[in-house]
């Protein structure tokens, strides 16, 4: 009988009774064939691979992570709490030592959900990885976390949430934003003043294949991960880089995905996008599961796989080499340069216009972060959208310094007193206080 080298927990929750709409890519059928393939392969009979049921995330788990306006109930359904709960369960399996690795094969996805949530964008309401990461930091003694997002779309939500967080390294490799939703994720996006270089974007040209993905993993992602030295590595395992995906333009294969996971060796993987549900997902998921468990995956391929059709154009190979050098320079050199950084004690301000394509909502926000040398800095977000009047979010980060704590409460009380805001939400990670006013 086959035996897994790494004990792998799989939290499988296909939400067979939930869809955004009947013909939407994010529909009931999405993980049906993946389940068929895993069952037919006898995956759960492999010694060391165990299937688990998801937890259900609580409102507090969401409130710890997001500013949801008007509140969590209005922007989530049960499906989102279960999918986030699936990610939490997979984290617990690893951190409690029950399993060596885990894979949350859950839906709906989350990586386009930003710090502030007014509704759904890019099929996502809440950011399931972020909810999981904040759960981990609240309940376990884990400081440094790295997220490697291999979804074809730039994970602008995860980037937004960790933009100012020096303890969470966010690396995204995705199809170049000039050619695909959401149109962001350029190399120059490298993180806020307190977390410069802790956001790394690797935009890949359309038709990048197995060769390119694996080149970038081995030559860019791995050296950066090694330097960052994370306690936990998470793969945001989107599967829409696949050559058969209907909404993207890449040439990645199931073998490529398996090898990527083999090399990356993440502690936890969380499913994100991927909508070639018959021709790709069953084989990619099988490949990822086997690679994570340390079981031979060499016979995994798609029924219609033809290497010569997918061979990478040499011009892309050349382009990737050059780009890789640039990314490495950004991480190892440019981000250490703090010319132009404001003096500590000042607010660094960003104005953002955000469009929620799934729900058709427009949001305007002003985000202010305290430039701080003693902590991650207090965060203040003023936001209004086509569904909510002006709202305020104040976050006092984990291990906040005295100044940022008192500054946080000053902004909060000021916001409440002036009655300018319809909804006010506080995230106080020091006192573990999550409140609305």
């Amino acid at each position, binding site marked *: *009988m*086959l035996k897994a080298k790494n004990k792998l927990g799989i939290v*499988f*929750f*296909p*939400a*067979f*009774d*939930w869809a955004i709409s*009947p*013909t939407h890519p994010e*529909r*009931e*059928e999405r993980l*049906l*064939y993946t*389940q*068929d*393939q895993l*069952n*037919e*392969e*006898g995956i759960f*009979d492999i010694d060391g691979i165990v*299937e*688990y*049921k*998801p937890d*259900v995330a609580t409102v507090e788990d969401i409130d710890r992570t997001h500013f949801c306006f008007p509140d969590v109930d209005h922007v989530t359904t*049960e*499906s989102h709490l*279960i999918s986030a709960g699936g990610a939490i369960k997979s984290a617990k399996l690893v951190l409690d030592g029950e399993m060596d690795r885990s894979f949350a094969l859950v839906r709906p996805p989350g990586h386009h959900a930003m710090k502030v949530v007014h509704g759904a964008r890019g099929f996502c309401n809440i950011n399931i990885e972020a909810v999981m990461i904040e759960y981990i930091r609240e309940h376990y003694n884990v400081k440094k976390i790295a997220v490697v997002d291999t979804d074809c779309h730039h994970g602008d939500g995860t980037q937004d949430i960790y933009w100012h967080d020096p303890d969470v390294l966010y690396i995204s490799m995705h199809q170049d934003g000039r050619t695909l939703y959401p149109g962001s994720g350029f190399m120059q996006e490298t993180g806020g003043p307190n977390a410069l270089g802790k956001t790394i974007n690797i935009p890949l040209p359309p038709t990048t294949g197995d060769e390119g993905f694996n080149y970038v993993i081995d030559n860019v992602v791995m050296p950066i991960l090694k330097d960052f030295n994370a306690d936990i590595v998470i793969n945001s395992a989107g599967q829409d880089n696949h050559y058969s995906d*209907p909404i993207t333009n890449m040439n990645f294969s199931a073998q490529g995905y398996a090898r990527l996971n083999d090399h990356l060796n993440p502690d936890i993987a969380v499913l994100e996008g991927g909508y070639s549900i*018959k021709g790709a997902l*069953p*084989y990619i998921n*099988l490949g990822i599961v*086997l690679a994570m468990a340390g*079981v*031979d995956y*060499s*016979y*995994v*391929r*798609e*029924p*219609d*796989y033809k290497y010569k059709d997918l061979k990478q154009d040499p011009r892309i190979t050349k382009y990737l080499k050059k780009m890789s050098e640039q990314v490495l320079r950004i991480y190892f050199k440019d981000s250490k340069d703090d010319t132009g950084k404001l003096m500590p004690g000042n607010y660094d301000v960003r104005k953002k216009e955000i469009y929620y394509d799934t729900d058709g909502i427009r949001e305007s926000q002003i985000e202010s972060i305290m430039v701080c040398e003693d902590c991650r800095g207090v965060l203040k977000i003023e936001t209004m959208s086509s569904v909510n009047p002006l709202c305020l979010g104040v976050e006092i980060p984990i291990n906040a310094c005295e100044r940022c704590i008192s500054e946080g409460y000053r902004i909060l009380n000021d916001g409440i007193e002036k009655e300018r805001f319809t909804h006010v939400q506080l995230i106080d990670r020091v006192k573990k206080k999550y409140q609305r006013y």
Partner: protein
Amino acid sequence: MLLGVDVGGTHTDAVVIGDGGVLAFAKVVTRHDHLLSSVHEAIEKVIENISPEEISRVNLSTTLTTNAIIENKIEDVCVIVSAGPGIDPGYYTMGKHFYNVDGEIDHRGSEIVLIDVKEVERVVKKSHKDGVRVFAAVTKFCTRNPLHENIIKDRIADQADFVTMGHLLSGQLNFPRRIATAYFNSAVWRLYNDFADAIKSSIESHGITGDIHVLKADGGTIPMEYSRKTPVESILSGPAASVMGIVGLCNISGDSIILDIGGTSTDIAVFADGAPLVEREGIELNANPTLVRALKTSSIGIGGDSAIHLQDNRISVGPSRLGPAMADGGSIPTLIDALNYTGHSSYGDIDKSRAGIESMQAKSSMDAKTIARSAIDYSVTMIYNEVQRIVESINQRPVYTIHELLSGKKVEPGHLYIMGGPANAMESLLSEKFNMQTEVPEHFRVANAIGAALARTTVEIELFADTEHCKLVIPNINVMKKISIDYTLDRAKQDAIEMLRDHLHTIGINEDENDVEILDSSSFNMVRGFETTGQNIRVRCQVKPGVMHRYRDILKQC
């Protein structure tokens, strides 16, 4: 009248049940080298005062196939598989004649690569030359499309005495289990058929003309004639016999636990809403998971004859058995001796039990009473913990819809049924530990044979329909038919029930008491681009394990 025979590890038990309840029972020693004679003898004894022509049905539970597989006394099988992409099928090699040929069918049942007929023919020829006469054909996703298995069988033709085809074993997806199950099925085919011939003439020689059925691990039966093609279904039926016995003897309603405390182990079964739970996938045999349906049972190494150990001044019991209890003339004190010492039982030679427990004082700072009490507490706690673990694992089993996750039923046992040798002695102890109502049925000593006698036919089928391909398959009862594009889930449910009923008639089950139930059903919109192209429909339905209605109320004693 019903005749039930259960061939167990030590004894072969037989009972006759009629309108007056248990009319006769007999117990003979099992002769492993000659099971037939044990069965013959047990029947002879049990019908001494019964007119054989009144027996309408004989149900037999036997260890024949189980033992043959465990002891590896099985025939060589040529296994021909074709797999397509996935895990290398080489990891699932069974036997010395295992061949993987090209050919590929995907999860929707579409043929991707033709089966390599030339290679099949070559392999068949070679195996025939090697003297192999039984074959197994197993292809990945054959339950969605059995085409390649049928082609392999055609090519084997008269070169084999028997061919097992994977899709006829179960509708369930699980290629490695299917390979193992098909292999075992062919490996015991000849042995089983010879045994069936012999049993048939033995039973007829007693003047019994009733139908003969064989017990399965899921607590149901199949007609022996029909089981000749699927002998693997007769493996590991022993624990199921006892569980079904309890169903016959007690009015089980709600969620309950059944404990069968034997000499070396305690078997645990779980009931939900009065029905025994069936293992989700299938039973494991010789470390090989199979697709053979089985009741969810678990075994723990604590029984009446389990030895009491003393180490570092701590008492433990089992899992080893180092001979019988001292009350039975053994040399090492066991759980039964402890129960005798504390007065919970008075079995066999109580003085020897007392002496045995007292002799342990020398190596310990505990007095004899504490030693006996600790041994009992240890045993009760071990059983309790194992029950907790099983119930927890049942409640943690994955579900796939939001509805089931948020409002799914939890198993919360409120009743404990105990049988086996030390049942009476341990009842009050277990009742206290579990904080549940307990019952010990009166005829528990022959519950296994009663269970065998009363068990009724079970069948499970899985219907798979794809309205885009206009295809419907129910693999294990060999149904394949065309459907129209407007075929619906409701139609599928009706068809599943109807075809299961038809199947029961075909195999000679004509009682109209077969409760057919839908286990689960689903229908998925299949979408290409933004167009719905069809429905992907699945329906699982079964005749659930249970006892024959007519006799259900006769025996209730609890």
